[in-house]
């Protein structure tokens, strides 16, 4: 298991990661979510002992990364930067990696097959497309058959086919009992793959919870209803004290509605329904609001506690979740004026 403890990284005047603490649960896909510049890549580099933390620590199964014997057999990582020499063939790139950790050379052919690069194994990686480069990076991560996998923005720049492939790969890795830690700046991507979420903004922890909890807390459900007898149904709903909202394209939404209840109600009043579909507000919106607030909070006010208006950031996962529950969800706790979202670069 990966444990991140009070991790802080400062580059000159930039505080890239700020007192970050969380644990990556075993055997599931954990999404590491945050807008560009939130500190995801920096955190991942510190997990691999590539960047030195200003303070704090990371342990993998209780040990620092550099204390792992043959680390590729514990953790496989795909980092954001393309990390291959353009003049070396895909096969030889994997070969030197394999040799550094005493992984048999036969495994190189195996992972090349796994990622579908066997045909181009003897070609120089300099001529690879972005998708092929990404596959080579994933092959390198899988090389040591590690229990933990870490991917930094793996679908960035991939075509739809590649994106689908990466999603399925991550799910199947978790199904094999592996721990998958994957970063993204897109909520929609995480919603499709992650079982657990760690959300950061401006280097700080914003949320650490299961995907289901995130959905429950952040997406307000409603039911879309269409009927040829709208007046009758609206009356029936009003009598049952269920609030509604008309839709521009006809029909209406029942806020926080339960489809079974609405269907029964319609039947009791002899009303026919042409549509009865549960809907969810976009998670992307919830995520944007959450991070926009943190961005504004961090850039607009260096000492937020002094003016007493900004809420203190959650100290750790436990506090974060309790806070969320108390105040009725993330939107509530972090809801300040509409945040100027930092431009994504």
């Amino acid at each position: 298991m990966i444990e991140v403890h009070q991790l802080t990284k400062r580059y000159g005047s930039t505080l890239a990661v700020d007192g970050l603490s969380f644990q990556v649960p075993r055997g599931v896909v954990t999404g590491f979510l945050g807008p560009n510049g939130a500190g995801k890549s920096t955190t991942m580099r510190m997990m691999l002992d590539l960047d030195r933390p200003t303070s704090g620590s990371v342990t993998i199964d209780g040990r620092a990364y550099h204390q792992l014997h043959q680390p590729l057999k514990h953790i496989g990582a795909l980092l954001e930067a393309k990390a291959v020499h353009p003049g070396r063939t895909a096969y030889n790139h994997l070969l030197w990696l394999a040799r550094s950790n005493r992984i048999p050379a036969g495994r190189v052919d195996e992972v090349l097959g796994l990622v579908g690069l066997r045909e181009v194994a003897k070609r120089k990686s300099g001529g690879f497309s972005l998708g092929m480069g990404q596959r080579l990076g994933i092959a390198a991560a899988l090389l040591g058959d590690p229990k933990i996998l870490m991917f930094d923005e793996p679908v960035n720049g991939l075509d739809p086919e590649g994106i689908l492939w990466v999603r399925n790969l991550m799910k199947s890795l978790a199904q094999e009992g592996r721990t998958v830690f994957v970063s993204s700046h897109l909520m929609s991507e995480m919603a499709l793959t992650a079982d657990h979420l760690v959300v950061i903004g401006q280097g700080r922890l914003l949320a650490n919870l299961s995907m289901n909890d995130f959905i429950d807390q952040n997406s307000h459900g409603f039911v879309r209803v269409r009927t040829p007898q709208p007046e009758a149904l609206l009356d029936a709903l009003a009598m049952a004290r269920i609030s509604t909202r008309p839709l521009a394209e006809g029909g209406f939404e029942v806020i926080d509605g339960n489809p079974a209840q609405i269907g029964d109600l319609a039947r009791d009043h002899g009303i026919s329904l042409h549509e009865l579909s549960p809907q969810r507000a976009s998670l992307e919106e919830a995520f944007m609001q959450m991070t926009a607030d943190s961005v504004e909070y961090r850039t607009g006010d260096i000492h937020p506690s002094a003016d007493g208006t900004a809420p203190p950031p959650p100290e750790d996962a436990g506090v974060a979740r309790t806070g969320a529950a108390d105040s009725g969800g993330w939107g509530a706790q972090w809801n300040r004026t509409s945040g100027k979202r930092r431009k994504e670069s």
Partner: protein
Amino acid sequence: MGDFSAVLFSEWTKVRTVRSTWITLLVAFVVTVGLGAVISAVTNSQWNSMSDRDRLTFDATSTSFSGIYLGQLAVIVFAVLVVGNEYSSGMIRATLAAVPQRITLLLAKTVVVLVLVLPVALVTCFVTFFLGQALLGDHGTSIGSTHVLRAVVGAALYMTFIALLSLGVGFMLRKPVLSLGLLMPFFFLISPILSNVPKVKTVAHYFPDIAGTQMARVVGDNSVPYGPTAGLFICLAWVAACLVGGYALLKRRDA
């Protein structure tokens, strides 16, 4: 300290699987041998127009090694790229993730450069010597003469030391353009010029290339206040300083 032999094998695999390794080392061989041959042939043909003083201090062995002056640049490129390529491609992160013990990595690269450059330099220097002596004709010397074998081996050691020193600089400056931008002008222009400037030259005499030149001489250079053995140790001190400096920065810095 990590699994040194595995890392060594891995570093060897890296070096052997890029074309720049073989191109730079081949260029080092061709230039050193070729330029040495040309200068030896020219010296032979111009012998009669040389001053008496030049004839008295004439060193047939070191004349045949004149091409090292240019050939060393290819050796520098080779060694700088061994580490610089990793920084320019971003591969250093893959390397350090696979080998997080940075001392192990630096030592493995050092050993790989050593075991690759030393034999190439020995072959280069022996070929250069025999071809140069043949072209010097009557003015040439033989391998059996006093101190000649020592000078030939000394020249090969010098090329090897330049490679190791460049590797250390490569670790310090990371970007190949920076390392080459420092090392190439230094060895090609700055050091040769400074070592001829009065006063400055008392310091410049301890530069690695001047010290290395003493190792490859049979007839002592009376403008330099030390002999071949001291030259060897001065060169070694430069190599050690650059590698220690490279390690200090590699250990401290973010990848």
